[in-house]
């Protein structure tokens, strides 16, 4: 028989002013198994806790019920109290008679008391079925994987590495740097993007604790928090980087020109290439899809000119296995493919209708025009530039419902840059709202207005060529009139969308995405940098559109979380996890289907049946992965899975007690 002690708290007048506390204690003393029921002014206070400790010892209590405030407040406090008295901390049950009783039923003290008694009866019933639980520990591999080498991934990698941990950084492009490396200037300070981005790239490459895999992709992730095993595919570069010196002869001599991804199609690169002069690593890869040798079996010019014999056409993909304890997702964003849906803007047929990222390349001193704003069709300087915001953003019909958050500011920056570089040029910005929440953002926008940018409130309905110009037909809702502008260049602020393949990667890693394929954080307010799978963290635009300061902040936050995880060699796992009774389990694995954490796996057990040894499959819970939601317990038909701390027997006993 359990020896249960019940401790009813007055909480000053909070409970005592409504509920007849002595009567509750008196009623509790008659519940089965209760050997002591008492009350005290403030149970959570030092003397209150001491009272419990003394009572446990004196009355040899084996289970404790505290009737007080919500368990969400002091469950941990009282668990520690039990521990001090030498009891397993999980032998505690709390009856919530403050938030869910006294405070809610102040006007009916009689019925509040009645309900409090019922709630204590429930707690006693559960307490009598509590079992000691022991937090298990799982080892932590203190090495992190960062997926994505843009500013988010670089920042996270550097922060974790600076804290003394090993980091593996995987980037799918031939260079790290991401989108930030393409930008010209950053708002609102207008400092040069390359000047702050390229030093980070170099720092990553030179950091002794960072292993960099570029032109590589994560192919498989197994395991769980602290103990992931990842497989990385190093795509064949066709160039032996241990021999290559990056001298550049090969890409000078390569005869094949293709549109450059880095230049957003405004410039070209060769089939053997480095993305841009400051690329890290500054060694080329061969784009096999476009290489003459790979396409037609002839050429081999690069091989002939390479002074170190680094060209290796036979090089194959390589699979690399790594053990890591934490993963940071930093896969960034892409631009919405406007040319597939915006027929009214020409479906991408008009060369002088470009995206904002193309504009970044156009105005970038290292870009295809050397930083001169020249329109793509004929290389003339535009006299009239129209910016159209929300192309694909805030457009449920053609694109995405959400606001892409960064366009208002970069468009203001672009408008400013045009007015600065092309004195006398006219700039029109079509907008629905101007959103400038950020430090010094509104000031920057106002400055752009003062520079002379014309902000026209309304969407653009059609863009079409007339002669060598474009006619932009829109509305000025402030004037209540249709408007038309002749433009030499139109820049579309296209929506920010998760980078290509983000959803597949999420499935592979085992985290979830929202309806737009942005990665879902564990809690939108309180756990914004954790994925809903333990040990996986989010940084930057993969979680939602973000500007550089917010991206860097989130990356550092993710790094801090990783470091916290890495602060010990082992981590405690909550003991309230699911457990399989393998005698009852018949291996249907329905539980596996509902488990959101991939914590259930089939295992084979052998047993003796009628003198014969047979093998059968049963479910097994990995307590490192299990988060204790209990979904499996309901899916289990033979009732073989139970949840520790919320077992079927415990809940049924609670129900019975409440219905008495």
């Amino acid at each position, binding site marked *: 028989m*359990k020896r249960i002690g019940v401790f009813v708290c007055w909480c000053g007048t909070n409970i005592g002013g409504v509920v007849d506390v002595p009567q509750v204690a008196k009623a509790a003393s008659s519940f089965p198994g209760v050997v002591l029921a008492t009350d005290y002014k403030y149970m959570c206070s030092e003397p209150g806790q001491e009272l419990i400790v003394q009572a446990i010892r004196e009355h040899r209590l084996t289970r404790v019920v505290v009737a007080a405030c*919500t*368990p*969400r407040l002091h469950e941990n406090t009282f668990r520690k109290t039990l521990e001090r008295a030498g009891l397993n901390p999980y032998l505690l049950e709390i009856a*919530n008679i*403050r*938030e*869910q*009783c*006294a*405070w*809610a*039923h*102040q*006007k*009916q003290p009689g*019925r*509040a008391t*009645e*309900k409090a008694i*019922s*709630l204590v009866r*429930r707690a006693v019933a559960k307490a*009598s*079925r*509590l*079992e000691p639980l022991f937090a298990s520990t799982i080892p932590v591999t203190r090495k992190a994987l960062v997926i994505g080498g843009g500013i988010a991934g670089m920042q996270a990698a550097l922060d974790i590495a600076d804290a003394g941990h090993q980091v593996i950084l995987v980037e799918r492009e031939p260079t790290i740097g991401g989108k930030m490396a393409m930008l010209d200037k950053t708002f609102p300070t207008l400092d040069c993007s390359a000047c702050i981005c390229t030093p980070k790239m170099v720092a990553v490459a030179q950091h002794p604790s960072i292993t960099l895999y570029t032109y590589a992709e994560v192919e498989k992730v197994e395991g769980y928090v602290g103990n992931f095993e990842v497989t990385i595919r190093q795509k064949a570069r066709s160039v032996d980087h241990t021999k290559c010196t990056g001298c550049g002869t090969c890409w000078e001599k390569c005869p094949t020109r293709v549109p450059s991804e880095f230049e957003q199609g405004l410039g070209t690169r060769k089939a053997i290439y480095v993305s841009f002069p400051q690329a890290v690593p500054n060694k080329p890869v061969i784009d096999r899809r476009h290489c003459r040798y790979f396409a037609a079996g002839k050429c081999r010019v690069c091989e002939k000119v390479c002074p170190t014999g680094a060209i290796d056409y036979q090089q194959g993909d390589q699979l690399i296995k790594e053990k890591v304890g934490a993963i940071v997702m930093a896969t960034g964003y892409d631009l919405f493919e406007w040319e597939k849906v915006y027929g009214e803007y020409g479906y991408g047929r008009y060369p002088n209708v470009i995206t904002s990222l193309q504009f970044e390349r156009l105005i970038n001193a290292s870009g295809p025009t050397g930083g001169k704003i020249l329109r793509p069709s004929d290389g003339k300087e535009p006299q009239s530039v129209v910016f159209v915001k929300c192309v694909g953003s805030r457009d449920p019909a053609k694109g995405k419902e959400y606001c892409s958050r960064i366009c208002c500011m970069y468009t203001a920056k672009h408008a400013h840059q045009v007015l600065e570089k092309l004195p006398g040029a006219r700039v029109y910005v079509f907008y629905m709202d101007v959103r400038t929440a950020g430090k010094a953002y509104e000031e920057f926008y106002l400055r752009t207005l003062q520079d002379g940018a014309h902000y026209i409130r309304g969407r653009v309905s059609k863009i079409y060529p007339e002669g060598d110009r474009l006619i932009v037909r829109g509305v000025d809702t402030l004037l209540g009139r249709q408007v038309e502008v002749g433009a030499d260049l139109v820049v579309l602020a296209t929506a920010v969308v998760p980078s290509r393949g983000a959803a597949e990667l999420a499935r592979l890693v085992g985290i*979830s995405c929202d309806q737009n394929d942005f990665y879902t954080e564990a*809690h939108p307010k309180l756990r914004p940098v954790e994925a*809903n799978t333990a040990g996986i963290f989010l940084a930057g635009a993969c979680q939602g559109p973000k500007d550089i300061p917010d991206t860097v902040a989130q990356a550092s936050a993710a790094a801090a979380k990783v470091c916290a995880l890495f602060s010990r060699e082992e981590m405690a796992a909550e003991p*309230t996890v699911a457990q399989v009774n393998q005698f009852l389990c018949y291996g249907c694995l329905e539980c596996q289907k*509902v488990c*959101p*954490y991939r914590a259930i796996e089939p295992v084979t057990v052998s047993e003796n049946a009628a003198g014969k040894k047979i093998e059968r499959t049963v479910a097994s819970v990995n307590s490192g992965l299990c*988060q*204790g*939601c*209990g*979904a499996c*317990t*309901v*899916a289990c038909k033979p009732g073989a899975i139970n*949840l520790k701390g*919320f077992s*079927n*027997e415990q*809940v*049924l*006993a*609670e*129900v*019975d007690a*409440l*219905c*008495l």
Partner: protein
Amino acid sequence: MSLDSQWEPKIVGFCCNWCSYAGADLAGLNRLSYSPTVRIVRVPCSGRVNPAFIIRAFQRGADAVLVSGCHPGDCHYVSGNYHARRRFLVFKRLLEYVGFEGERLQVRWISGSEGAKFAQTVDELDRKIKALGPNKKMRQEPPGFSGVKDHEG
């Protein structure tokens, strides 16, 4: 329960620890008053609520059961409330099929910030059950007759 005139419904609530239990706490914190007929069992997730728990409550004389979890899409455990939603949709229909009043089982999504919604939900259910009268169809007397074995630890 003595006289019918004094009868007050008995409502058992299953609230998930992360949203609805917190919502109930918030209702109290804001001193929103609601009917004391509801008593809550804390569960980690609405997906933990086994239909067997509900049948047991009705058998033991509960007049209504409220299952409440995080809003769809906000589940602390990713997808638990989706399972719950699907499960109880079917379960409710099953109850109705066997002639039991489906209104006695309510499934609601209440977040940790929706104290007022919790209070309203309880009061609404309380009114509804008062109009419906006591649960006589599934109640079994005496308690313990159901044959469900108690695992006395």
